[in-house]
């Protein structure tokens, strides 16, 4: 196979991408690395999700007394039955789409996920969930370490971050993950036009292709530029994607729309990162009709559009959505109709091959019982039951085809919920 430099650039490939052993067509790489195969969409609810308002133990005798203004009346929750301990549970009233997924057996709800000595800091907490390492939450993220295990050469679109800055979970040692907040603006501009603009792209690509001597920080920025050049054209093809359903016009839903576009185009991306914020509800949480309800609407409507779009295109069985947040929130509401930082939270998994259902057991919200094993911090916070790393291990081993023990730096398989 022969090609000219111009073909190369037009094809979205750089022969000089750092770490590439030899020039090769990206489509070959993409196919070899699993176009049309399984992918993982990680959804981060930033700020610390009040999961007691998302998956509600509405029949707990202490629920209303600890949430005097923030409780959802039992008659308004979307009932989904009981967990294995007999705790009756319901979804937030805005989560109608999620209940439909639950009823189809495609939504798994994993209660009380967390870890020992849960951090109440947004930043430490996010680092811990990102690295899967409560003891030392610096360094590469758990998804980054998975990407590091993909045999080189790694397709620059092996992972796709829909936010502007690379999240800690996707920081890898050898792979640079592109940040593509909007495929339509992910393009290379020029002060000139026509062949002059093409020349600039050619030489910009070349200038960043060299490994600078003794300047690893410069090499890093060069590798970022190279990853950008190597992904431009395939990203442009996603920008033209026409989905089978209408997505809401907000950042979360539009990010999921882009993910659906990548899947529909068979780009071969394995890991996606989608984020939606506003969950740090210290005040005026207004669970039933106000700000928290708006968060649930955004979550539900975006996921429903995505789920329906993928179903329509036969892509649901190759997709796994995994949702988390850096911590749950305090059980007792505070004086400003909000909730402060807490501990364990709820994870969700959605997908065509997910074993839907309710995993784990709800906390007993009674703080007076000092032997209550489901609470911590003097009865103020929900104590974890399922180590979040066991969920990661299940996803790595049973979905991504990796080795969770080596990627997570320990064997967390025991106690993993049987979601896949």
């Amino acid at each position, binding site marked *: 196979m022969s090609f000219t430099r111009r073909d190369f650039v037009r094809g979205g490939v750089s022969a000089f991408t750092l770490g590439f052993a030899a020039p090769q067509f990206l489509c070959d790489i993409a196919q070899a690395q699993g176009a049309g195969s399984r992918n993982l969409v990680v959804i981060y609810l*930033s700020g610390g999700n009040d999961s007691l308002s998302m998956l509600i133990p509405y029949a707990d005798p202490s629920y209303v007394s600890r949430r005097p203004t923030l409780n959802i009346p039992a008659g308004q929750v979307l009932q989904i039955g009981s967990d294995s301990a007999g705790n009756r549970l319901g979804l937030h009233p805005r989560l109608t789409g999620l209940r439909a997924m639950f009823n189809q057996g495609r939504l798994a709800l994993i209660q009380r996920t967390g870890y020992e000595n849960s951090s*109440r*800091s*947004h*930043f*430490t907490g996010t680092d811990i969930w990102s690295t899967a390492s409560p003891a030392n939450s610096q360094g590469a993220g758990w998804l980054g370490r998975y990407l590091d295990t993909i045999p080189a050469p790694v397709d620059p679109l092996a992972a796709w*971050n829909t936010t*502007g*800055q*690379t999240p800690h979970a996707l920081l890898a040692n050898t792979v*640079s*993950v*592109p*940040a*593509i*907040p909007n495929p339509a*603006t*992910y*393009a*290379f*501009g*020029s*002060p*000139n036009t026509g*062949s*002059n603009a093409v*020349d*600039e792209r*050619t*030489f*910009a690509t*070349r*200038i*960043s292709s*060299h490994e*600078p*001597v003794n*300047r*690893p*920080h*410069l090499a*890093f*920025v*060069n590798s*970022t*530029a190279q*990853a*950008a050049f190597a*992904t431009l054209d395939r990203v442009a093809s996603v920008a033209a994607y026409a989905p089978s359903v209408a997505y809401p016009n907000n950042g979360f839903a539009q990010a999921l729309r882009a993910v659906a576009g990548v899947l529909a185009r068979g780009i071969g991306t394995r890991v996606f990162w989608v984020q939606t914020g506003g969950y740090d509800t*210290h*005040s005026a949480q207004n669970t039933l009709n106000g700000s928290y309800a708006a968060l649930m609407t955004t979550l539900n409507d975006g996921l429903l559009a995505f789920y329906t779009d993928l179903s329509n295109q036969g892509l649901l069985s190759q997709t796994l959505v995994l949702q988390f947040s850096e911590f749950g929130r305090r059980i007792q*509401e*505070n*004086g*400003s109709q*909000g909730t*402060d*930082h807490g501990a364990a939270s709820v994870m969700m998994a959605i997908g065509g091959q997910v074993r839907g259902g309710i995993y784990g057991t709800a906390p007993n919200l009674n703080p007076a019982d000092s032997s209550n094993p489901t609470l911590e*911090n003097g009865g103020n916070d929900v104590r974890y039951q399922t180590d979040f790393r066991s969920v990661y291990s299940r996803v790595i081993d049973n979905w991504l085809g990796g080795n969770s023990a080596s990627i997570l730096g320990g064997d967390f398989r025991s106690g993993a919920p049987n979601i896949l």
Partner: protein
Amino acid sequence: MAFPDLEMMHVLRRAAFGARPEELADFSKRGLAETIDEFINFTRVADDVDDKIGTPGYVGTTSNGAFSPSTVINDARQRWLFRMVHSRRPLQEKMALFWHNHFATAYSKVSGNTNALDGTRMMAAKRSEHPGKLQGQLELFREYALGNFRDMLVEVAKDPAMLVWLDGRTNTRRQPQENFGREIMELFTMGVGFYTEPDVYAAARVFTGWNLQRVGSGDDTNGYYQFQYIANNHETTAKDFSFSIYADGSKTIPARSAANGMQDGLDLIEALARHPETGRRLARKLWNFFVSETNQPDEFLIRRLASTYQTSGFSMAAVMQMLLTSRDFLSPANHFTKYSWPAEFVVKSLKEVGHAGFSVNTALTPLANMGQQLFEPPDVAGWDLGRNWFSTGAMLARMNFAATLTANQRFNISEGARGKGPTPEALLTMYLEQLSPATYDRAAYNDLLDYLRTGGTWTGNDAQIGIKAPGLLHLIVGSSEYQFV
């Protein structure tokens, strides 16, 4: 003076936002010592930069109707960029940017909890622009740019934008609310590892009653929020901490009457300012911002800076004086070892490429795409710095800003380069002296030359210069080398 004056250019990239060629010549003539001295003692220089907005010869602004930076956030963003480009007190603006990241407060929540007018005022109004002499948070950071850190902490704790941002308004006796109490320890002073969870709860109780009152009725457009201690909301019992609060080593803030309860917060702030780790943490943050992100801090210098911080009674001017005159700061080994913040990159490129006829409004969307919308840090921890600025999308945004700027400046660039390119080497040499990228290795340097040579024989005529000069500047400003300061 050596030419180019590499040491001065380094100082100007770090303690200022780079320099126009004529500014560089002026500073070089006066020398390093005088320049740094004037940057630190900036009150000697008139604070007249805002008067220049809208006058010829300066970068432009664009507004809907009258330019109103104390009431319209988009205009506030432009005014700050304008100051970065033109202030004759550049270190003041640099420190304001540092403090904006340190006490990171986002307009979206402040305005979301009030309205766009109040939100902008709380972020950016100057006292002189408001009948109630309301001082926006940015003006607080400018006032205390090199001021007393303890006093600044007190002002930040009373700052209306901060009280909205970290929910101080809803922190009450009956139900203390931890947001501010946590972050003042975790992020504003000593950092994680030096306080306990019970300390957070105690700190929340300490600040109960620190609140806002509305001056003027709700529909009065001159109305505003100002700090008010509401004794009735204060929780009066003693508060125990794990670290010493008072000079005698006592770890307990005593029970006080509600009327005197505001002293709790002043005592805690004093203790946090004095905590040994606060000086060290500030010193390390300043090292990363001014000296290097790729070379580890020199622990001896960090100790000296922390010591100066304590002995000077928390004077940031004393700390910065020591830092900017240290051998580490000036060392060539630390040149170009800081990943530029998007605002630094944008302003440096405006100063070095040119800005005649350019409006800073044009830079606002690119800045957001690069990951730094002013007055909109992603969370209270501020922006993710260093390498984290450089995602692929953000790098493309930087390259594309270079394209936008060079397209906008095509006429000026072509005029400036007319007759300066008898050979490709001559043109490239001129730009490498005018701009300040990190050194290009030979291969990258040759690529720049090959770009000039490609597409036909080099003539250096006006038509060719009109395409190649903007194209070359686009490549330089968009290159990895240019992203370091």
